[in-house]
């Protein structure tokens, strides 16, 4: 069978379709369009807002918080416990208190000699050192 013959026969395929009544089909389709409301696109609910998952998550948080709390209470107090950071502004401390804080941190403040110097005060060697330091 050649392609031309195949195409000729193909036009004869589906004769059973000739029994479908276009008027009856139009009636049925219009009835269905009228009776079945158009479905709105489904709104996707985020996974985390689904009620069972929220309950499970809340229960897990409660269990973890309880376990952590019990562990903290049953643990003997250590020196580290006294090092709980406190929200205190350094500006509120007096000079004496600041010195105490620095002493407690074993912090040695560097000593700088702050002498105002203009470029014109530098000799050639000092300018060279300065430029080299700026170049990195």
């Amino acid at each position, binding site marked *: 069978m050649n392609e031309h013959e195949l195409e000729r*026969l*193909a*036009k*004869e395929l589906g004769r*059973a*379709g000739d029994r479908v009544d*276009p008027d009856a089909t139009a*009636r049925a*389709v219009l009835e269905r369009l009228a009776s079945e409301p158009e479905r709105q696109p489904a709104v996707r609910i985020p996974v985390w807002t689904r009620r069972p998952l929220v309950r499970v998550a809340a229960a897990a948080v409660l269990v973890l918080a309880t376990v952590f709390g019990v562990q903290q209470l049953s643990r003997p107090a250590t020196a580290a416990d006294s090092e709980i950071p406190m929200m205190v502004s350094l500006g509120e401390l007096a000079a004496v208190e600041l010195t105490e804080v620095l002493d407690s941190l074993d912090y040695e403040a560097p000593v700088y000699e702050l002498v105002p110097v203009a470029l014109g005060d530098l000799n050639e060697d000092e300018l060279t050192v300065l430029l080299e330091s700026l170049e990195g």
Partner: protein
Amino acid sequence: MTVPEPVGPADDAQLIAAWRAGDELAAAELVRRHTPALARFLAASGAREDLDDLVQETLFRAFRRIEGFRGTASFSTWLMAIGSNALKDLRRRAKGRTVVPLEERELEAEGGNPHALAMERDLLGQLEQAVRKLPPMQRDVFLMRAQQGAEYGEIAAALETSVGAARVHYHQAVKRLKAILK
């Protein structure tokens, strides 16, 4: 429900625009106009006793998603693509049910030699079975082209593939059908 009376001659694009604006007459005219070709296409694709339901389902889906019709394919070819998907869905749901035997073909008696007519009927029956064995894409392209006379461009647009791919599917289908029917 009474069917609205046929409207005057208007092309598909005008009827589609009218339906989008809510005109039921336009929808009824589109159904009347395209039901015969769609029914033949679906029957050739393998629809049997469920043919009426399938035609209605196809048209219902088409009107519901008419916004998706961009006019790159003809309305007729677009309907066939939707029909092919509706048939696939039906098959999926009906999987495992009893297969209904091929129904008797009703070749139009156009006179002539009864022996030749019987041979033609036999050949057509073989072709119909062979077409149903094709992979869905090859079957759709073959029927749209050979049975419905659609151009490759609109077949490609309706089936969301390229023109080149549609040509390949068609030639694969012809090759396979020839091999089955020789």
